[in-house]
């Protein structure tokens, strides 16, 4: 299934993410794509909120991964911007998180597209329409 929604503010993006979160059952990778400032972290905030997580959600640019525990499902929030090879990826514990039963949200997922084979991937592409407007395209299906 593929669908697009338009967003004109952070709230819209969070609502789109919260709507997606209702369909999650654990074990999925939410693979985000879209350049700097497109609202990827904002989308993950919406996922966390939709899953009932009460704490703060911040970009894991430096930590690589943040864990949001306490909602309906655990949410693991990766930023792969600085991941350049398999050794980097392995040392983040990425493969351990995939088996942990939660939802794994990945910013800059294009950097690790080779490491999503056989996983249940929901891809989320955020495109710029204007300074404030975004087109968010969500598609389900196995990664190829």
């Amino acid at each position, binding site marked *: 299934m593929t669908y697009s929604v338009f967003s004109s503010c952070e709230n819209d993006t969070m609502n789109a993410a919260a709507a997606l979160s209702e369909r999650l059952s654990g074990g999925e990778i939410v693979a985000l794509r879209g350049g700097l400032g497109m609202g990827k972290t904002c989308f993950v905030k919406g996922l966390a909120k939709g899953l009932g997580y009460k704490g703060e959600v911040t970009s894991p640019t430096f930590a690589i991964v943040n864990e949001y525990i306490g909602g309906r499902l655990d949410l693991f929030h990766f930023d792969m911007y600085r*991941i*350049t*090879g*398999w050794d980097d*990826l*392995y*040392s983040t*514990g990425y*493969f*351990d998180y*995939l*088996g*942990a*039963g939660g939802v794994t949200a990945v910013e800059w997922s*294009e*950097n*690790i*597209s*080779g*490491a999503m*084979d*056989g*996983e249940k991937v929901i*891809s989320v592409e955020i495109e710029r329409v204007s300074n404030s407007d975004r087109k968010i395209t969500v598609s389900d299906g196995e*990664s*190829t």
Partner: protein
Amino acid sequence: MNILAIECSAGPVSAAVVSDKKVLSSSFSDIKLTHSQTLFPIIQNAVSACRLKFSDIDAVAVATGPGSFTGLRIGIASAKGLAEPKNLICVGVSTLLAAAYMFLGENAVICPVIDARCGQVYNALIKVEGDTVTRLCEDRAILINDLVGELKSTDGRIILCGDAAQAVFSAAHGIKNVMKAPLSARLPSAVGVALYAAHAIETGEYTDAAGLMPVYLKLPQAERELREKKGENI
């Protein structure tokens, strides 16, 4: 000689104490908490359950991989920390070989399979005949389909264990001599690590705290692209 063994290479975490090849105690948990929270209470349980104090422990054994990156680091760092102050003897063992030691007394090819993601498993084929354990191949990462191909041409009873046992069993559908281990021996346990260590110390195969190192068996995908190529759309 009292040997404390630790196994936290996968989901479960366990500790066991053996002495003279006899398992004195074992403690196991498979709950959704990180090993850094569960390992030490379990070590304490295992040691106190056989009325020993930590000062009675003479050697520390640990499963060194392949397996979960974080699990291996927690297990090995803990073993090093416990062994270092008193310079205890240390034994590092392959998680796959340790799994085969759970089947001592059997007469079969043990096929431990650990989920390595991306359609692959960490695996070795290990023959157990009574008390004799013989490796048929080195530890490796292998595609499930390739492993099934090998199993087709392997004689004798083949027993699958490890967290991917069900997945490989399903893929090996129709191979008559392939069976799943009973649930009680399906998952990695420190008992296997301990039994291996008892044997290894007897034959002089041990090291010290500094000599324990994790073995992250890499998936043979280093040559595969991780990043999507520029301009390519999936």
